[in-house]
């Protein structure tokens, strides 16, 4: 039983990372109907920003709350800046082009970041110093760590904050208006360019935060291709939960994290992806819009 609970905790910790990355996919898709494949690579850049800032602050030998906060905010700001730049330089000029061109551009952007990252940062693995000491926390038979709790806490806080922002603020209302109909929103006086830019900035800032948390999760080990795999899983999580839905992303992320953990615990680890994708297919067969998504038939 204690092993079961420990595995559940492992799964939730892994799942909250998928959920946090999935939020970014879901946001951009909600507003632009674009699957931003470069999203998880923006996460990688966020992790590198964290690496440079934390190393610069000498946080490794001297961890503190202040250096942790600075690193965290720097990663979010760096990723947000990159997100805005990508939107302005690549996606905006293509906005009136076909959906397919935009999708291909997103894939190209993803490859550019991955392999450009190998050129700029070097292909070798780096280690993000621990900005907060990763103490073990023992609760009876349950072994947790400070990092695991931070991962869960930050994911939940960011998700709730995002939900509040989208549903309760004026800008959030404008965002929802753009997501329903860009042209109608423009007629109502919404600055759509600004709103779309803001969506990318927030989505990318979440990716930046995820970058540092992913680094926490894998003991600081980062490399330019670190986004490929979690990105794929997070994308599946977003679709599984219902792409466009904030709670769906969280639910999908947690489900996949827990499923993967239990598969790896009780079956050969090579079954892990098979099971993940089987779950996705099964859910989509029963609920084509995902668990919490709303199915909207296209009106002609």
């Amino acid at each position: 039983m204690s092993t079961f609970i420990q595995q559940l905790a492992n799964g939730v910790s892994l799942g909250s990372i998928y959920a946090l990355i999935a939020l970014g996919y879901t946001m951009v898709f909600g507003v632009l109907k674009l699957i931003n494949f470069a999203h998880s690579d923006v996460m990688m850049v966020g992790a590198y920003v964290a690496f440079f800032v934390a190393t610069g602050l000498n946080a490794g030998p001297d961890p503190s709350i202040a250096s942790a906060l600075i690193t965290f905010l720097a990663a979010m700001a760096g990723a947000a800046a990159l997100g805005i730049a990508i939107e302005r330089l690549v996606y905006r000029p293509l906005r009136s082009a076909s959906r397919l061109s935009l999708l291909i551009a997103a894939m190209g952007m993803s490859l550019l970041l991955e392999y450009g990252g190998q050129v700029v940062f070097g292909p070798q693995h780096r280690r993000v110093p621990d900005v907060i000491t990763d103490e073990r926390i023992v609760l009876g038979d349950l072994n947790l760590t400070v990092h695991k709790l931070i991962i869960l806490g930050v994911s939940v806080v960011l998700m709730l904050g995002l939900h509040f922002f989208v549903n309760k603020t004026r800008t959030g209302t404008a965002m929802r208006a753009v997501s329903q109909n860009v042209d109608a929103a423009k007629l109502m006086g919404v600055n759509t360019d600004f709103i779309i830019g803001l969506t990318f900035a927030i989505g990318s800032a979440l990716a930046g935060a995820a970058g540092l948390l992913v680094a926490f999760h894998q003991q600081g080990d980062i490399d330019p291709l670190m986004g490929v795999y979690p990105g794929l899983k997070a994308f599946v999580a977003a679709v599984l939960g219902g792409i466009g839905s904030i709670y769906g992303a969280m639910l999908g992320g947690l489900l996949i994290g827990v499923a993967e953990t239990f598969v790896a615990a009780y079956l050969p680890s090579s079954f892990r992806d098979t099971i993940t994708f089987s779950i996705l297919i099964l859910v989509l067969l029963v609920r084509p819009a995902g668990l919490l998504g709303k199915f909207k038939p296209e009106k002609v």
Partner: protein
Amino acid sequence: MLNRCRFPIVLAFSALFASFACKKSNPAPDAPRTPPARDGVGAPPARPVAGGDIVIGEFGSMTGATATFGEMTHRGIELAIEEVNAAGGVLGRKVRVLLEDDQSETPQAVSAVKKLIHQDKVVAVLGEVASKRSIAAAPIAQRAKVPMVSPSSTNPELTEKGDYIFRVCFIDPFQGTVMAKFARNTLKFDKIAVLRDVKNDYSVGLANFFTEQFKALGGTVTLDKSYSEGDKDFNAQLTAIKATAPQGIFVPGYYTDVAIVAQQAKKLGLSVPLLGGDGWDSEKLWEIGGESLEGSYFSNHYSKDDQSPRVQKFVTAFKTKYQKPPDGLAAMGYDAAKVLVDAMTRAGATDGKKVRDALAKTTKYAGVTGDITINEKRDAVKPAVVLKVTKGQFQYVETIQP
């Protein structure tokens, strides 16, 4: 999944780029094509030799997940070739090493060897460390009848690829036995869990040989779990392993993965020693894993603390050149290059067939990593050492004879 479909794209681009690069560089005035040198009348056309030097190809993981493997091996080879050239070269000619980086990726290893053999026309190939990449590249050398010497690929399958494929290290059936004997007889362990990398020929082979031997010695394997190279989350497997209360865990992976495994094990309150093989041998192991590896053990090709004069002479020369001590892979690179040069000297020629025959006859070559004798399977038969990880150092524990 995405990753898979990306490789062909990247390969296509690099091929395109390479073909442009060739077209540009061939007519360049500073690189005149020397006419192929002929070793004898009636002999098959010898490989053209640039500038009269003997050109040996090397492929290694200079970057990527196992970057220190490639880097240290290359330094060993570089040192060996420098010494050879300082002593007048081979057959009156200088030796030059052409290095190709395979980025720790199997497809790149294959294209690196293709390039070395078909484009650069090297007379022999040195490499790789990772068995998976050596095994993938070996058939190319075999088909072209270019001798290939792997410094430290220990999976038995490698030299089964053909009679031009050699290695100067021991093989995993022996290495697995070493660790099993050590765990059972020296550490007196009864119960051990295994955590293997299923995507890695080396890891799977070593895990199997270890399990077989450990059971034969009366021990129990409590649980056999797996992961895939590059995984970052081992919590699920380690939690399952913890529930079976083993006295140690055998993790025959590469250092980047092992270091993370060690840390996550400690965080889960699983404080038993880890055991492993020569894939652990990297200064990065401690750099990433730190304290959580304290008191773990692994088998290796040699120990830099070995006081025999030939080891100490090598360690001193290496330290002078690179300002850091050589690890096992550097020593293997050094020996591989020296054994190859020795074979060329004995063959009196550089053509593939003659060098191959000479390599096959290598007997009691006094290498840094022990006396090297190539057996009928083209493997070296040598003792192994067990090292203990302590305070960032790899401390010599014992030598186990074949």
